C-alpha cells in the first residue's frame, strides 16, 4: 500500500490547480454556512444573555395613569411573576450647537437601586443617586452621536417645563436595543434619545406622583400569556389601559426577531448552491481522473488489489480535497462570522457580543460537506468497480461523435471546422456541458444578489419618499390639538405649505386576527402625503372607509378590499366600529392604515383636531423654523425627510457593502472554480487533438480558439439563464425577508445585470488565460508518441 500512497500524493500534486479550485468552492460553502450560523447563534446568545442578565420583561402595559396601589392587583394575577411600574414620558431635548429638533423618551428608574425588570447596563459613569433630582443616564448610542459624556449638561422640556439635567452615566436596556422614535421608520441616534431618570424626579415633572403610566412584568413558568393579558386589560380599563402586549410585539424585540428570522431564512440558500457546484466539480474531476488512469486501475486490479482498496484510494484523494475545504471553510467562516456579527451588533446596538462558533455547527457543516464529496465521487467509484482488468488494458475506441443540432439546422456551412469541433465537443457530453453552464449561471445569479439590496432599497426610498411621503418636515404634537396649530405653523417664516394629519393608535380586527397600528388620517386631495397603488398610481382617500397597505391586509389580517374591518380606537372615547376596507395600497415601508381626517374625527368625537402636520419648508429658513419648534412645548416630534433617508443609509450601508463583498467573492470562487476546472478537464481531454493540430501547422492562437472558444461559448450561453436565475434568486430573497418594517420589491437595475455578467466574464477570462499558458507548453512529440 505504500506505493499507492505515493501515487495518491502524486495525483494530488498533478491535480493541484483543480483540487485547489474545488477546495475553494467547498470552503466557500462551509464558510458561508458557518458565517451565517455563527452570526445567528452569536446574536441569539448575546441577546438572550443580555435579556436574562438585565431581566427583560415579558409583558408590556402602557396606560394613561394608575395609582401605584393598582400594581398590587397586577401582582395577584395568576401566572404573573414580577411586576415593575414606572413613568415614561416623551420629551424634547435641547442640544447646544445642534440646530435640528431632538426628541426622546425618558423612563423612570428607582431613586435607589436597580429596577426589578428591564435593568440598565452602564457603559460609562454611574447610576443616579438618591436625592439628586437632576441626574440622568442617557443611551450609549445617543451619547455617541453627540459626543456627550458623564458630567455634561442637557436641557430638556418635559410636560412643557424646561429643565437642566446632568448626565451621570451612559448605557442601555434590553427594551431599547433598537431605538425607534414613534413615527420614525429607521433609527436616528442623533435626533432621538433614550433617557433614564429617577422615579421621584420624573413623577414630579410629569405629574405622576404616586402613580405610574407603564407597567412591565414577567410570567411564571407555565402561565397562560393571553389569559394574563386579558386580566391586565380588565383591571386597567378604568385607568386608561390601551392594551397590554407580549414581548413578541415589543418594538425593539420584534425588530431583532424579524431580522434574525431573515438571517436564518437566507443561511441555507447559499451553502446549498456551493455544495451543489462542488459536488459537480468533484464528479467531473474524478471521473476524468479515473478515465485517464483506467490502465493503471486495471493493472492494480490485475495485481490483486481489490475493488475496495482501489476505490478507497480514489476516495482518499477526494477526502483530502474535502477535508482541506472543510478546514479552510471553518477558518474563513469563523473570520467572516466575526465580521458579520460585528456588523449586526452595531446595527442592532447590542451592548456586547458573545461570539460563538458552536462545535455542533462545525460538525453539521463537515458532515454535509463530506456527504457532498461522497455524492460527487459515487459515479467514479462505481466505474472503478465495474472496470474489468482485461478490458481496461485495451485502448478505448475513439468516441462516437455526432453532428450537432445547430449544424443540422443548416448552419453547418457557416461554421469553420474548429467551430464545429467546439460545438460537437459540447454536444458530445451534454450533461457535463449543461452542468458547467449551470455552475456559471449560479455564479452570475449570486453576483446579482450582491447588488440587489442596494437597487431595491434605492427604489423603495424613491417610491416612499418621492411619491408618498413627500414632506420636508413632519411635526407631531403631544396630544390632539385644534387645527389652529397648523395655521400657526404655516404662518412661520419659511413654511410654504402645510397639511394636517391625525395619527391615533388603534387595534384592527378581522375574524380571529388583530393588529395594532397607528391610523393615519389626512385630508382628501392632500399633495404632500399621498397613497399609491402597486402601479404607482395615486389612490384617493375614501370619504368613509379605511385604506390599508397590502402587507397589513393580506399578510397580517387576511382581509381584502370590500370587507368590513373592526376598528378599535385606543384614544379618547375609544370607539369600536366596523369600517369597510375601500382600497389596498402598496407600501414597501411600514404597516399603515389610512382614513379621511373628518371621518376619523367624527368617529372619535373629540372635535376637529389634528395630531401633527406635514410641511413644505424653505431650506433657507430651516434653522429659524427648528428654533421655533424647539420652543413650542406641544411639539414633541419632528421628522426631517432627508434626514430619515440618511438614517436609512447609515443603518443599511455597511451591511449592504459587506454582503456585496461576500457575494462577489463567493461568486468569483464559483465562476473560477467552474471555468477553470472545465478548462483543465477539456485540456486533458483535448491535448492530443490540439497537439495534432499544432503538428498540422495550426498556431498557438488558432488552437487556443478551440479550447477557449469552448469555454467562452459555455460562459456566454450561461449568461441568459444566469441573469434569469439571479432575478429568481433575488425574488426569493425578496419574498423571504418581507416583514412589518419593510417589504422588498424585486428591483434590479440594468447596471446590476451588467455587473454580474462582467465579473463572470472576467473571472472566466482569467481562468481561461491560466489554462492558455499550459496550452503554450503543450509537448507535441510526447503527446503523439502515446496512444489515447
Amino acid at each position, binding site marked *: 500500500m505504500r506505493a499507492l500512497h505515493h501515487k495518491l500524493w502524486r495525483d494530488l500534486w498533478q491535480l493541484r490547480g483543480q483540487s485547489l479550485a474545488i477546495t475553494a468552492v467547498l470552503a466557500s460553502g462551509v464558510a458561508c454556512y458557518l458565517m451565517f450560523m455563527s452570526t445567528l447563534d452569536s446574536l441569539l446568545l448575546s441577546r438572550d444573555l443580555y435579556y436574562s442578565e438585565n431581566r427583560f420583561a415579558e409583558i408590556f402595559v402602557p396606560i394613561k395613569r394608575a395609582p401605584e396601589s393598582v400594581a398590587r392587583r397586577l401582582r395577584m394575577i395568576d401566572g404573573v411573576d414580577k411586576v415593575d411600574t414606572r413613568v415614561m414620558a416623551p420629551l424634547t431635548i435641547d442640544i447646544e450647537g445642534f440646530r435640528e429638533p431632538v426628541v426622546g423618551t425618558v423612563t423612570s428608574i428607582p431613586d435607589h437601586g436597580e429596577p426589578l425588570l428591564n435593568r440598565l447596563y452602564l457603559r460609562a459613569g454611574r447610576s443616579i443617586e438618591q436625592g439628586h433630582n437632576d441626574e440622568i443616564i442617557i443611551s450609549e448610542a445617543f451619547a455617541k452621536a453627540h459626543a456627550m459624556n458623564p458630567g455634561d449638561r442637557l436641557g430638556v422640556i418635559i410636560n412643557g417645563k424646561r429643565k437642566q439635567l446632568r448626565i451621570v452615566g451612559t448605557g442601555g436596556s434590553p427594551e431599547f436595543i433598537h431605538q425607534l422614535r414613534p413615527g420614525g421608520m429607521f433609527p436616528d441616534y442623533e435626533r432621538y434619545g433614550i433617557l433614564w431618570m429617577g422615579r421621584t424626579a420624573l413623577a414630579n415633572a410629569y405629574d405622576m406622583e404616586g402613580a405610574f403610566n407603564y407597567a412591565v412584568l414577567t410570567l411564571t413558568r407555565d402561565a397562560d400569556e393571553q389569559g394574563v393579558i386579558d386580566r391586565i386589560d380588565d383591571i386597567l380599563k378604568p385607568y386608561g389601559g390601551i392594551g397590554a402586549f407580549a414581548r413578541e410585539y415589543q418594538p425593539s424585540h420584534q425588530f431583532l426577531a424579524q431580522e434574525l428570522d431573515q438571517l436564518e431564512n437566507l443561511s441555507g440558500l447559499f451553502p446549498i448552491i456551493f455544495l451543489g457546484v462542488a459536488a459537480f466539480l468533484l464528479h467531473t474531476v474524478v471521473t476524468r481522473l479515473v478515465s485517464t488512469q483506467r490502465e493503471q486501475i486495471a493493472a492494480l486490479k490485475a495485481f490483486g488489489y481489490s475493488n475496495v482498496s482501489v476505490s478507497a484510494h480514489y476516495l482518499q484523494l477526494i477526502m483530502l480535497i474535502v477535508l482541506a475545504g472543510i478546514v479552510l471553510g471553518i477558518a474563513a467562516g469563523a473570520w467572516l462570522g466575526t465580521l458579520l456579527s460585528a456588523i449586526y451588533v452595531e446595527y442592532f446596538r447590542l451592548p456586547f457580543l458573545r461570539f460563538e462558533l458552536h462545535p455542533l455547527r462545525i460538525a453539521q457543516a463537515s458532515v454535509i460537506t463530506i456527504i457532498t464529496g461522497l455524492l460527487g465521487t459515487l459515479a467514479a467509484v462505481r466505474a472503478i468497480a465495474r472496470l474489468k482488468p482485461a478490458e481496461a488494458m485495451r485502448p478505448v475506441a475513439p468516441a462516437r461523435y455526432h453532428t450537432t443540432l445547430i449544424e443540422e439546422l443548416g448552419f453547418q456551412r457557416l461554421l469553420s*471546422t474548429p467551430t464545429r469541433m467546439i460545438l460537437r465537443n459540447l454536444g458530445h457530453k451534454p450533461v457535463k456541458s449543461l452542468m458547467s453552464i449551470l455552475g456559471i449561471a449560479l455564479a452570475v445569479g449570486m453576483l446579482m444578489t450582491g447588488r440587489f439590496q442596494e437597487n431595491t432599497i434605492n427604489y423603495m426610498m424613491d417610491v416612499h419618499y418621492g411619491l408618498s411621503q413627500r414632506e420636508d418636515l413632519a411635526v407631531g404634537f403631544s396630544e390632539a390639538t385644534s387645527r389652529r396649530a397648523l395655521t400657526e405653523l404655516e404662518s412661520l417664516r419659511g413654511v410654504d405649505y402645510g397639511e394636517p394629519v391625525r395619527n391615533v393608535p388603534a387595534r384592527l380586527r378581522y375574524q380571529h386576527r388583530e393588529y395594532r397600528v397607528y391610523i393615519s388620517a389626512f385630508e382628501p386631495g392632500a399633495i404632500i402625503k399621498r397613497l399609491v397603488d402597486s402601479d404607482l398610481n395615486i389612490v384617493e382617500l375614501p370619504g368613509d372607509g379605511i385604506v390599508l397597505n397590502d402587507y397589513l391586509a393580506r399578510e397580517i389580517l387576511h382581509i381584502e378590499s370590500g370587507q368590513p374591518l373592526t376598528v378599535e380606537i385606543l384614544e379618547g372615547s375609544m370607539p369600536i366600529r366596523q369600517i369597510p376596507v375601500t382600497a389596498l395600497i402598496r407600501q414597501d415601508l411600514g404597516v399603515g392604515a389610512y382614513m379621511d381626517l373628518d371621518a376619523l374625527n367624527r368617529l372619535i368625537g373629540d372635535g376637529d383636531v389634528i395630531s401633527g402636520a406635514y410641511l413644505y419648508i424653505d431650506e433657507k429658513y430651516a434653522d429659524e423654523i427648528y428654533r421655533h419648534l424647539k420652543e413650542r412645548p406641544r411639539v414633541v416630534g419632528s421628522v426631517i425627510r432627508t434626514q430619515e433617508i440618511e438614517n436609512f443609509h447609515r443603518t443599511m450601508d455597511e451591511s449592504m457593502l459587506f454582503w456585496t463583498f461576500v457575494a462577489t467573492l463567493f461568486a468569483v470562487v464559483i465562476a473560477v472554480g467552474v471555468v477553470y476546472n472545465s478548462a483543465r478537464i477539456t485540456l486533458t481531454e483535448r491535448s492530443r487533438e490540439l497537439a495534432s493540430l499544432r503538428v498540422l501547422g495550426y498556431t498557438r492562437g488558432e488552437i487556443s480558439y478551440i479550447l477557449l472558444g469552448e469555454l467562452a461559448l459555455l460562459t456566454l450561453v450561461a449568461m441568459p439563464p444566469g441573469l434569469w436565475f439571479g432575478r429568481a434568486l433575488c425574488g426569493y430573497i425578496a419574498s423571504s425577508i418581507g416583514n412589518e418594517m419593510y417589504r422588498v420589491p424585486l428591483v434590479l437595475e440594468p447596471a446590476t445585470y451588467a455587473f454580474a455578467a462582467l465579473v463572470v466574464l472576467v473571472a472566466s477570462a482569467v481562468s481561461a488565460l491560466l489554462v492558455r499558458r499550459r496550452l503554450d507548453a503543450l509537448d507535441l512529440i510526447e503527446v*503523439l508518441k*502515446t496512444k489515447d
Partner: protein
Amino acid sequence: MIARSPHRTDTEVAFRTRGVTKVYQMGEVQVHALRGIDLELYKGEFVVLLGPSGSGKSTLLNILGGLDVPTSGTVNYEDHDLSTFREAVLTRYRREHVGFVFQFYNLIPSLTARENVALVTEIATNPMPPDEALALVNLSDRLDHFPAQLSGGEQQRVAIARAIAKRPDVLLCDEPTGALDISTGIVVLEALARVNRDLGTTTAVITHNVAIAGMADRVIRLSDGRIADIEINSSRQSPAELSW
C-alpha cells in the same frame, strides 16, 4: 516496377543537415539521441529510414518536420533554417510545407473524414479539395464517417489524405503501418507511393519493417544516433510486390 530514376544526386536538394546532434537531459543522465548527422534528402525522392528501436529515427524525422530542434548542428529545408528556436517560424514551416503521418492516426474524433482533411485545407495556400485528397487514398465512400466508424487502415488513410491535401512539399511518416495488419499496411503504403509519384512529394518513411525498404529510392540506416549506411535501390518495388 516503377520507371523512375533512383539516382537523385543530380537533382535539387530539399533537406541538408550538418553535424546534427540531439541530447536529452534526463536528470543526471544525458541521452544522445543523435550524434552528428550529415545528410541530404532530394526533392521528390522516397526515403525509408531503418534502424533498431532507440536509434534516433523519430528524433531525426521530428527535426526535419520542424517539431523539434537539434541541440547542435544545422538543418535546412531549401532556404528555411530549421535549427531555429522560434516557434512561429517552425509553425509556419509545418503549415506551408510538411505533411505528417503517425503510427497512431491522431485524427480528431469529433470531425468526419472530410472535415479532418478540411482542417488542413482551410489553413493551406494551395490545397486540393478534401474530397480529392480522400479519393487519392480510395476513401471516396467514407467522406462523412466519423473516425469511430472507420477501421484502423481507413483511419490511417484519412490521416494520409489529411497530410497530403495541402500538396505538401514533404511527407514525413513515422511507422505509418505500425498498428496495421499486412494487407491494410499495403493499402496504406500504396497510398503513400501514389502521392509520391503523382504529386512529386519528397517522402520519408520510418519503419521497422525491412521489407518496406524495397519501395524506396534510398534506404538510410541509423544506429545509435549515427547514419550507419545509405543504400540506393536501383529499382523501386510497388508495395504489393513487397515480401513481408
